[in-house]
């Protein structure tokens, strides 16, 4: 005898598989649009991106073909643009984080008893998440002019959209006990959040923020393509002038930058949650 719960689960699984199969069919994932040899084309692209380095001239100056300096012919400019990208990502994440913490305290069920406020805020976060970054960046670059300002605002908006959901859920998952403890001792709303909720959820929020910093970094690199500041403009230029080896050079700078941020954020997080602390 199969229990009703199991039968239901099986039924949902069948429905899910059906929808999945239908989606694969509609999206033409396995269809004929990939004629020829896609992997060979990817290979050819990678071949074109590979710079022509000459072993004997690796460390020569930038006028010598085959040297690193020739490959990274505008290296200092790209590095400056990469640093601008990092700055955009950090500012966008911090602004987004600060705005989100304020709004999420008003959107969390355990902190905001008045339902309509929560409802409006949650729909607002959804709206922010729905707008594609790149569209926003194009509009803002038109409004504020080409430059990092448009990028920072775009990243802030996108960050509020995703933090809105994540922070609200983290706040709602806080144990009610410590909050009751502060409330019963005569603590007001701010005290309940500061001493009842914050110590519980802060490590979570920081982890989210650091992850979002990485996402924003990648996004900031892409946003430059539409003129919203940062290194993206160099990527765009390299493609436009079919300088594929330059494209790879810029890409390597971006990857190095993301790795640096990733390692830093990991160190910060471990320090915060006390991994490796002797106590």
């Amino acid at each position: 005898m199969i229990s009703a719960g199991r039968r239901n689960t099986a039924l949902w699984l069948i429905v899910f598989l059906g929808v999945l199969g239908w989606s694969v069919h509609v999206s033409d994932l396995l269809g004929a649009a990939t004629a020829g040899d896609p992997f060979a084309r990817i290979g050819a692209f990678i071949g074109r991106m590979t710079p022509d380095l000459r072993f004997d001239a690796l460390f020569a100056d930038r006028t010598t073909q085959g040297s690193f300096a020739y490959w990274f012919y505008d290296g200092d400019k790209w590095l400056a643009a990469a640093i601008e990208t990092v700055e955009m990502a950090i500012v966008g994440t911090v602004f987004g984080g600060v705005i989100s913490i304020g709004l999420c305290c008003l959107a969390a069920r355990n902190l905001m008893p008045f339902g309509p406020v929560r409802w409006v805020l949650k729909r607002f976060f959804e709206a922010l998440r729905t707008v594609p970054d790149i569209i926003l960046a194009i509009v803002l670059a038109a409004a504020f002019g080409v430059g990092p300002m448009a990028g920072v605002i775009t990243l802030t908006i996108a960050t509020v959209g995703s933090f809105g959901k994540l922070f609200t859920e983290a706040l709602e998952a806080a144990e009610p006990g410590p909050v009751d403890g502060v409330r019963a001792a005569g603590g007001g709303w701010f005290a309940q959040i500061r001493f009842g909720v914050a110590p519980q959820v802060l490590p979570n929020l920081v982890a989210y923020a650091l992850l979002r910093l990485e996402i924003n970094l990648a996004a900031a690199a892409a946003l430059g393509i539409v003129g919203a500041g940062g290194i993206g403009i160099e990527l765009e230029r390299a493609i436009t002038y079919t300088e594929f080896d330059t494209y790879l050079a810029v890409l390597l700078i971006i990857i190095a930058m993301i790795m640096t941020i990733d390692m830093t954020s990991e160190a910060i997080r471990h320090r915060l949650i006390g991994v490796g602390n002797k106590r």
Partner: protein
Amino acid sequence: MLEIEGLTKRFGDKVAVDDVTLSFPPGQMVAVIGRSGAGKSTLLRLVNRLADPDAGDIRWDGSSVLRLKGRALRDWRRNAAMIFQQFHLAPRLDVLTNVLLGALHEAPPHAAMFKAFPRPLRARAILELDALDMADAALQRAGTLSGGQQQRVAIARAMMQSPKLVLADEPIASLDVENAERVMAELARINREFGITVIVNLHTLETARRWCTRVIGMAAGKVVFDGPVAGLDDAALDRIYRAGRPHAVMSERAPAAA
């Protein structure tokens, strides 16, 4: 003097506290006993205003505390200090800060948000901790302490509130015998030294008999016994512990025996 009159609280169609009328002259050491679900916790939470009743009144020195709002409500909560079964400290904050949370109203609010409490307050917090033999742990994170130690910190926080009333909701239910003894002794000391009324929810009769002078028995939200410990005879115990549906008694007994 605390007076409760006709107090009723419903959760859905379950009546947690049912038309309770009680009065507490200052300086009493009172045990509230009864099976779990009898309404003991809800009663204390109503007095502290962590929950609001559906009917009835709670008065302190003649004036109702149910209409209090904002600052006045926070002041009342501070006067009616709560101690919880699960301590309800902030585990990631240090012990001293946890105790100082009992004196938030005395600190400048903006500074308090950054845990910057004035020196006299910090000194008082240390003294409160010292009275409970916990001053050595002042800079430790509260979460690293044992249950008994955490409950003593919670008592220090309650005393930091300079309360007029202490409401202890099953303060020893999560503690081993030795720590339970210690915590009850501290509550009795507070009652004796400061003349503060202490109302303790307990589920063991033995503890109530040893430490308290007055016992209130609750069953299914109603007060079924109120009198001196000596008055707890078999008939009274029967009313407290065997009231209600018989199968509820069974389901209650089974895990206790395990």
